[in-house]
Structures are given as C-alpha cells and as structure tokens.
C-alpha cells in the first residue's frame, strides 16, 4: 500500500465516472425510445455486448463465455453458420448460467436463453434464409403507438405555428374526441418518443390540450352524400360515438342507443369532472352530433328493444356497450350497508347525484386509476379521511403515478401491502371497518410484477363508514347471450381485429366490451376501425382525410432541454370542488414544448416511408 495513503478516504467520483453515469442515463432513455419492430436477435447481441463490458473478468464462463456467445450470435446475423449453431449457443449459455460466479454472468447468459426460446424463429430465419423477420413498418414512434394513429407530429407543428383550429381538424381525421383526449388520454404516444434520446418525451397531451383550449369552436367537415344505408350503434361511449362520427361523415344514417341518461360512457360515468370538465365533454359530444346523428338515451337494448329487432331494422350494428358492471372482492361482509362499488359511485356522480361523505372515514379497495378516481372523489364529497388499501407496493399500482401522487397531495392515505380480509359490520348491518392482512412483497410473476405474500403480522383494522370497491369492471352480457353472440372466457364479446363478429353478418363490436376495461383512446381506435370495416361491408370505400397541410420543418433543435409538465391547481384548494385540476400550458410553454418535437414524420425514415398517413 502507498505509504502516503490515508487510512480512510471520502469517495468522490472522478470526472470519467461522472460522464459514464450520465451516459447510463442517456442509454436508459435511449432503450426506452427503441422503435417497435427491431430485430430481436440484433438487440439480444447488443445487450449481450453491454453485459460483456460489465464482466469483472475473474471467472472463466463470464469473461470468455459471454464473448463467445457474442461471436456466435454475430455470425448468425451475418448468415454464416448452419442451424447447429443454436445448439452450441444454448449449451454455452446454459454452462454460463450453471457455473458463472456472480449475477453479471448468470443474468447475461439468462438473457440469451430467454431469447433463444422467445424468438427462435428469428434466429432460424437468419440462419436458414439469411433474412430478418423484424420489420420497421411504422417509423413514427408516437403515431405507431397511438391506437388511433393520430398524426401527432402534424398537429404539434400546427400548434407550433399557432394554428390550433387546424390542429383540431387534423386530429379529428383519426380521433373525433380531441378535447376529451387532450384532458384524459393516457398518452401511450409519449412512451417511445424519440426525443427521449435527447432529453425527455415531448408533452404530447399537454400540447393537444393547448390546441383544443385555443381553437374555439371548430366546425365539422362536410358529410359525404347520403348512401341510404343505416347503422345502429349500441352504446354511446367514446367508441360508439367515434364509429357514429365516421359513419355519419361517410354519409350513412346513424342511430345511437344509450342505456344511461346521457351520452359519453365512461368519459362521463367513469372519469370525474375534475379531470374532464363536464362542459368540455358536452360541447364535444354536441359537435359530433352536429353531423346529424340520431340518439335514443335510456334505452336498454335487450330489455326495451331486442337485439334482433335492431338487426332487422338496420343494415349494420356496432356493439360498444363498454364494461360497466362491477367486480366483487368476495370477502366476508361485502354485502353490508355502506359498501358500494366504484362503478355505482361514479355513475351517480355522472348524473349529478352526489352522495354526502361529510365527516366519514372512507376506505377504497384497489390500486388502479378507478381506485384513484373514487379516492379523490370521496375527498371532494367531504370525507374526513380516505384510505386507499392496496395489496402490493405503490410502484406496482396500475394507476398512473401522477394520479396516485395527486391523491396523496389531496390528503388521501395510500395503505400499500395490505390485502383486504373482511368487512366488519355493526348490528344494523352497516360497515364499520375494513380488516386488512399485511403483506410482504415476494417473487416476480410472469408479467414482471412482484407477488404479495401474507406477512407474519397481525391483521389491521381500518375504521370505515363507507367502503368503495374498485377492483375492476366486467361486461354486461345479459341480453346478448341468447342472440348467438359468442362470449369469451373472461366475459368479453368475441370479435376479430377487424371488429367483425364471427358467424354474424353485419354485426361488429369493439372497445371495452371486447378487450375488457381499457382506455378511451383504445375505444376510439376500435370505433374508427369499425367505421372503416362497416363502410366496406356496406359496399363503399369512403376515404377520411384532412385538408390541413402540415408545415415543412426546418432544422430541429437538438439541444437538451427540460420537458414542460402540466401544472395543477393548489391541492388544498382543488380538493374542495370538482373543477378541473390541471392547468393548461401558457403560450410561452406551448411554443417551447412544441419546438422540442423532432418531426420524425420528416427526419429519419419518415420522409422515405410511412411518415404520414394522409387518408384511411
């Protein structure tokens, strides 16, 4: 040891280490921005090369084995070896798993084994035909990931030029609900935004919100000449109304049947107005109906009118009945007074029937977005204390993290790692407490989420006057079962990807009732697909396009810069009302944020292929 060395030193990272740390963060973002359709073998090789650089070099299988694995996979990609190489790769990887001294080697070899199993046909194609099954079919990541395929770079560039009404027009080509989506879309588009490679994803939903807030009333385009064909839509939610919208534009006569008092489906009866202001929703629906769509509310198909009668009367039917029944926990005492379902509570609120929770202790069971919606609604309905009980950890919740954080800021207790055990009721049969069993987080399941296991700790009593169950929704198939419509395991309707029902002429279905509870944008996408396929079925080929011309981009600004996030009203203030929580971007913010878009419609693959779908 160097004699000048002190006995202990304070660790400070060197400059090289600091830069490498920065590179790690860049690489993480870059992996997150991977476009869909990459060759899995190529990715496996490159991940393996990263692992190779991490080896400490001590043990043989990791130091040499990973290098040889990498060599062999590269040979596969170059189309050199025969099929026997797969055997050698597998054997080598297995030996590394069995014999490497630490996780660096074991885990790296495991990645290779997973790939050999998971995408063996890709390996084989490279070896046998020197070709790749991977294909980059849609190169604009945000558009590819938007279920409805909205022209995102197009409308962002329009927002950047201050052409908000044109932005709305362009969005409507693929999605008739720009406003609803501007407020509540889960924005899958942002997940793989290429801007992640530079700094962070563009705040796409925020820019859409800016567009709709600044566009005033944008009139709808002209309808095609009447075709004389009629279509009935059963269920006036986002999916049903989207199908209605496009079918009306194509010139078909459209009638919507809705079971509830008002149109909107889960946008009204599931999403609280502090997320999507009622007036905004009503205006948007009115705009869609301005195309001349006939509406019958409070008509329950199956009870008030039979499915077969509708089939007789119309040329085509679209089923978009959503998922509006509640799921039960099955725990003791669930039928006590004071135990309600989230669906029930939110449906009442949707019709302005507000329960009064003043001074109550409320317990919410569940960890999804609906659980957060009822938690935050309960706070607004006057509850003294709201506890959200969830059996896993906060990061395992399916709710969006900003929803969870928002609820916590408004004073909600989030009690994680507690599984509901039973509901305690008083002599009158009214709930007084929820008992929960503490959990310990355990092994990772197949979906990659760790499983909760019973902890060796006594159950916990959570005093509660009202208990709201928010553990999922099902589909009301009653009334359809007898009609010959096929119900899948899990209770959803069976329809193919073209939304057509098997063995049933002229009947289409989509949205939550086919997929199970999902998102507004997925229901819209299903409605759009249904409209196209119904149009074809009726013997037409109407094209939906937009007259808006997208500005040509100049050079994009690649200097790393922070993302403009939405701001929210003060938690103390907002928790007392049902007014909108989120504040829109300022002009300044919108100008800056929209200029962050990398215009993948034009740069990279975009100006070669697939940069823009002009019509469908």
């Amino acid at each position, binding site marked *: 040891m160097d004699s000048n060395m002190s006995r202990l030193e304070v660790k400070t990272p060197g400059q090289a280490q600091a830069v490498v740390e920065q590179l790690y963060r860049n690489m993480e973002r870059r992996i997150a921005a991977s476009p869909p359709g990459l060759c899995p073998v190529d990715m496996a090789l490159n991940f393996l090369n990263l692992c190779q650089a991490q080896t400490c070099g001590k043990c043989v299988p990791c130091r040499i084995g990973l290098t040889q694995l990498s060599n062999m996979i590269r040979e596969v990609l170059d189309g050199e070896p025969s099929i026997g190489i797969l055997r050698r790769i597998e054997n080598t990887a297995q030996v590394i798993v069995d014999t490497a001294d630490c996780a660096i080697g074991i885990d790296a070899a495991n990645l290779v084994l997973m790939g050999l199993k998971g995408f063996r046909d890709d390996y084989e194609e490279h070896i046998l035909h020197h070709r790749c099954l*991977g294909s980059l079919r849609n190169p604009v990541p945000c558009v590819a990931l938007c279920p409805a395929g909205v022209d995102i770079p197009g409308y962002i560039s329009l927002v950047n030029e201050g052409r908000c009404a044109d932005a709305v027009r362009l969005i409507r080509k693929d999605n008739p609900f720009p406003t609803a989506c501007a407020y509540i879309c889960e924005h899958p588009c942002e997940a793989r935004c290429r801007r992640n490679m530079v700094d962070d994803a563009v705040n796409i939903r925020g820019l859409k919100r800016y567009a709709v807030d600044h566009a005033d009333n944008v009139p709808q385009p002209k309808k095609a000449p009447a075709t004389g064909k009629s279509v009935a839509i059963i269920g006036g939610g986002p999916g049903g109304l989207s199908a209605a919208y496009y079918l009306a534009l194509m010139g078909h006569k459209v009638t919507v049947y809705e079971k509830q008092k008002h149109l909107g489906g889960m946008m009204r009866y599931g999403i609280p107005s502090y997320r999507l202001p009622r007036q905004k929703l009503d205006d948007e629906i009115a705009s869609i109906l301005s195309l001349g769509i006939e509406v019958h509310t409070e008509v329950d198909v199956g009870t008030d009118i039979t499915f077969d009668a509708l089939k007789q009367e119309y040329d085509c039917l679209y089923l978009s009945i959503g998922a509006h029944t509640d799921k039960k926990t099955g725990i003791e005492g669930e039928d006590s007074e004071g135990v309600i379902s989230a669906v029930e509570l939110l449906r009442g609120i949707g019709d302005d029937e507000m329960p009064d929770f003043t001074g109550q202790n409320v317990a919410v069971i569940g960890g999804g977005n609906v659980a957060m919606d009822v938690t935050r609604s309960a706070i607004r309905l006057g509850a003294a204390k709201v506890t959200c009980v969830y059996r896993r950890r906060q990061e395992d919740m399916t709710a969006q993290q900003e929803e969870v954080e928002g609820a916590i800021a408004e004073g909600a207790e989030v009690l994680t790692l507690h599984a509901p055990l039973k509901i305690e009721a008083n002599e009158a049969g009214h709930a007084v407490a929820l008992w929960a069993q503490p959990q310990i987080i355990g092994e990772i399941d197949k979906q990659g989420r760790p499983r909760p296991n019973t902890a060796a700790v006594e159950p916990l009593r959570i005093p509660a006057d009202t208990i709201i169950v928010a553990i999922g929704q099902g589909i009301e198939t009653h009334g359809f079962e007898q009609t010959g419509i096929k119900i899948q395991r899990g209770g959803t309707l069976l329809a193919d990807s073209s939304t057509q029902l098997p063995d049933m002429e002229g009947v289409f279905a989509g949205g939550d009732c086919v997929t199970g509870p999902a998102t507004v944008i997925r229901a819209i996408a299903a409605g759009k697909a249904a409209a196209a396929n119904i149009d074809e079925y009726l013997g037409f080929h109407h094209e939906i396009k937009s007259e808006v011309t997208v500005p040509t981009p100049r*050079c994009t600004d690649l200097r790393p810069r922070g993302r403009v996030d939405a701001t929210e009203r003060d938690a103390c203030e907002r928790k007392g009302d049902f007014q909108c929580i989120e504040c829109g971007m300022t002009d300044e913010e919108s100008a800056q944020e929209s200029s962050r878009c990398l215009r993948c419609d034009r740069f990279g693959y975009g*100006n070669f292929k697939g940069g823009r779908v002009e019509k469908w």
Partner: protein
Amino acid sequence: MVNFKMNDRELSVSNGTTILKAAEQAGIPIPHLCYLKDINEIAACRMCMVEVEGTNRLVPACNTEVAEGMVIHTNSPRVRQARKTNLRLILSQHNSNCTVCVRSGNCELQRLSHDLNIHYQPYQVCPERSNVDLSTPIVREASKCIKCMRCVQVCDKVQGMHIWDVAGTGSRTTVDVSYNRYLKNTACTFCGQCVTHCPTGALTVRDDTNRVLRALADPEITTVVQVAPAVRVAWAEAFGLSPRQATTGRMVAALKRIGFDYVFDTNFAADLTIMEEGSEFIQRFTHRGKYRWPMFTSCCPGWVRFLKTQYPSYTENLSTAKSPQQMFGAVAKSYFADKKDINPKKLFVVSIMPCSAKKAEAELPTMRNAFGDPDVDAVLTTREMCRLFRSDCIVPADLEEAEFDSPLGSGTGAAVIFGTTGGVMDAALRSAYYLVTGKNPDPDAFTEVRGSKPWKEATFSIPGAGDVKVAVVSGLANTRKLMEAVDSGKADYDFVEVMACPGGCAGGGGQPIHDGVEMASSRGSQLWKLDAKALIRFSHENPDVQELYHAYLKKPLGEKSHHLLHTDHDAWDALPDKA
C-alpha cells in the same frame, strides 16, 4: 422570393426551393448520390451536406428549403470533411471491384469517389454478401448496393409494383425483394426501371452477350439480328456521337462488323403487327358483342405480365397478336428460312431491345416454333449491343453508313414510332382507318395520342365503323390507375395502348443510363421525327410486308398467321412458383 448567400454570392430563389435546386440554378454543383428528383428526396447518403451559418450541424441540401437570409457554404472545411468521411463509409460496404463492373465508367459512386479525390480507405472494408440469381433478367448484387433506396422508390412510386423493399433492421438494414420473397416468385414485370435508376452496379440486366458471341463463332450457324425502333435513337449516346453521326445506318454498319449474317429491322415486324393487330381490332370492333372491352395492345411484355398478375380477368382483352420481337422471330425461322433454304435449327435469332422484359418474353414456353425452338434465341439490350461494339474496338463515328438487309429489313414511319408512347396506337389507327374505309387518313390525323403525357384519351371517327374511344398510358403506376378506372366503369374505351416504362420503350430498362436524367421524351421526339421524314408512313404500304402476305401468309388473321403470329396469353403462368 427568398434572398440568400451561397459561397459569398448574393442570390435569390422562389419560396420553397431546396438548397440543392437553388445551387443548381446558380451553377454551383453540390455532390449527391441518393437524390432523384421528385422520386427519392430522402437525404440518405449525406453527400449533399452543406454548412448554414447559425446552425450548429450540417444540413442536407436536397431536402432543406432555402430560408430568407440564409448564408450557405458548399465547400467549407467541415463540409469537405463530412463528404469525404461519408463517402468512405459508403465505400467501406461497397464491393469496389470496378474493373469488372458493368457500370464502370457510368457509375455515380465511382465518379464521386474520383471527384472527391478519395484514394485511400481508412475503414475496414466489408461488403454485404451477394447471392446472385441469373434466372431472371434483373440481377441484384447486394455487395454493390449503397442503400440509396432509389429502386424501392421507383418501383413503388413510378411502377407501383412494390417489388423491392427495405429488409432487415439496424445496421444490417439492406434492400431486398419485399416480403422476404425471391424475385422469380414475384409479379416483377422485369421492366428494368430499378436498373436504370440504380446509381451503381447493384442492379443490372443479365448479360447475354456471351451466348451471342458463341453463336457468331459457330460456322454452322446463320445469325440474324433485329433491332427495335427505340434502340436507334439511343445507342449513340453511349459513344458521344453528334446527332449528325448518330444514325441508324452507322448502327447497322457496326452490327455488320460484329459479324451478324443478316441485320434486320424490328420495324418490319412492327408493320406486320399492325396488320394483324389492326385487323383484329376491326374484327372485334365490328363484332362488339362477342368480346370484352377494351382491347389492349400486347407488344409490351412488362405490361402483359402486369395484367396477368394484377388484373388476370382482363387477360382475354389483350390482343392475341405477338409482339413485333416475337413475330420477327417466328417469320425469320419460317418464311425467311424457307426463302433462303436455311435449316431453322441452324438459324440463331438475336434481338436488340431497349428492354429487359423482352428477355423474359423470349423465354416464354409459348414463344416457340413447331420444333419447340424459341422464336428468338437471345435478347440483348441496347447497352449490351454497345458493349459488344466496344469490346470489338468499333468506333462507330468512323463507319460508313449501311442499309438493313432484305427482306426483313424494311419499316415504315408507322413502325418506328412503336418505340414511344402513343406510337402503336397512332400506327394502328392509321391502318385501321384504311382497312375500314379503303382510303388512307392523313398520317397526322391522330396527334392527340402523341406526346409524353402519361395518360391520354381521344375519340376518333372512322367513317363506316363509328367513333373509336382510345387511351394511351405509360408507366405501371399510371396503368394501375387506368385499370382501376376501367374496372370500376369510370372509364370506357375501345382500344388501349399500354407501355410499362414511362414514355414507352424509348425510356426502357435496357436503354443507356444517364444518372438523374429522363431521356424518354427526347428520344421519343426523335422517333416522331423519323416517322415524319419517312417515305412510307402506313404499315399496310410496307412492300416487304405485302410480299410476305402475298407469298406466304395469304391474309391477316389467316391460318398461317394464327400459328405464327398470334399467341394464347393464358397458356403460361405469370407466377410460376409462389413459394
């Protein structure tokens, strides 16, 4: 207008002009490789990078618009460095075996490497592996592909066939036949537009010159060569001849130098085609109810393959007349062989075509004589003919002009225009008019079908027969539009001429290649000039064709014609093995 500065010159251009176009207008060349006007403006090769003051990165000139006040440098040290580096990167994956490459001397990559003074390569050179398949007329050598994507775009946008596509992902991304197919299993029409738009030797038309040289070397064999109309207005481009020297006569002289026993003209067969096809049209037109409409021309093999794969139910609408190339072969191995007392088995018929699809046509199982021998034994493109001249050290400028041989060497003005869009229709109408009325029309009565417009329509009145609605289309993407219009009932024609290549055979896939320049229109107008100058401008007045009917065929659509000059388009499968 926007004002900008380029290399210290104050300039202005109209709004929306790209830097590349602006530079071109100012006479400032900017190198580029992948760029193809209107077809491939994807900024892939990064050869056209320029420096714009105030922008921290270099920008591609081909798809960046000039903005007001831009200060552009096309030769700054950074630009020079970038161009050289990117070109060396391209070369590191290119099989630079230029000495044995068919495109040597006419290769954009080679020219640019030379111009940019690149004489050493710092990078490891590792071209892609090539699997060359010579069973089709179009040959791809992956090791020479620079992934400019022009072929993909030409096939998609101009021909609408989507045969080529990007294949693979990541750094192994390349170009290959779409959907992981092999070319021979696709609906490829072998039009060769991908070849004539390839900047390197990655896409070529199969070279068949050795087969011809073997026949020439065999003393037992009599060689006969025919030259298609569009060849005569293009071949001299490869030798840089002045228009005065670039005559058909010098081409004939050069072919004779090569050693062909008889040098004939496909124009003869074009006149014969008009006799058969024109008569067939009149036959169909006067018995309307018996046929499906419209009637389609059948001289373009790319079009025939297109129709058979894309709109198979319309195959019966094709004229049953063989193409001039095939009629020539059939007549050469029967009438001519008889006349000269040559054993047809010892006759080797070569055609020089502006076309790559003609190679596939000659190989069709239906294009054979009674002995089962092919009517045409070998098809060379214009480019292959020029290569033959060059390899024999022939200097065409020094040759005395020569005449085509008799009796298959004569052609009228109506025949020579077969090589350009509208020409077959014009020629057919001239003779159809005569066949119905017994009188010649004004040879320039049908000018509406001429010109380079991609889709032309006209109605002509033939006394005694009525109004004939005709259409002329070239380029397969345009053809698809026409077919959709016909199929949906939006268009209604009696007679339609289709040529697969834009502008017709003059712009064919076998013609000399000029990077970035479309020659179809100028070559086409030369053909129209040849027609205007011709002594005879009606196919039915070709004396040798008249003699052929008199002495041998007897009459159009007769028994002999049926066997020799007509074909059954249903008798072969355009998609042999759809594996």
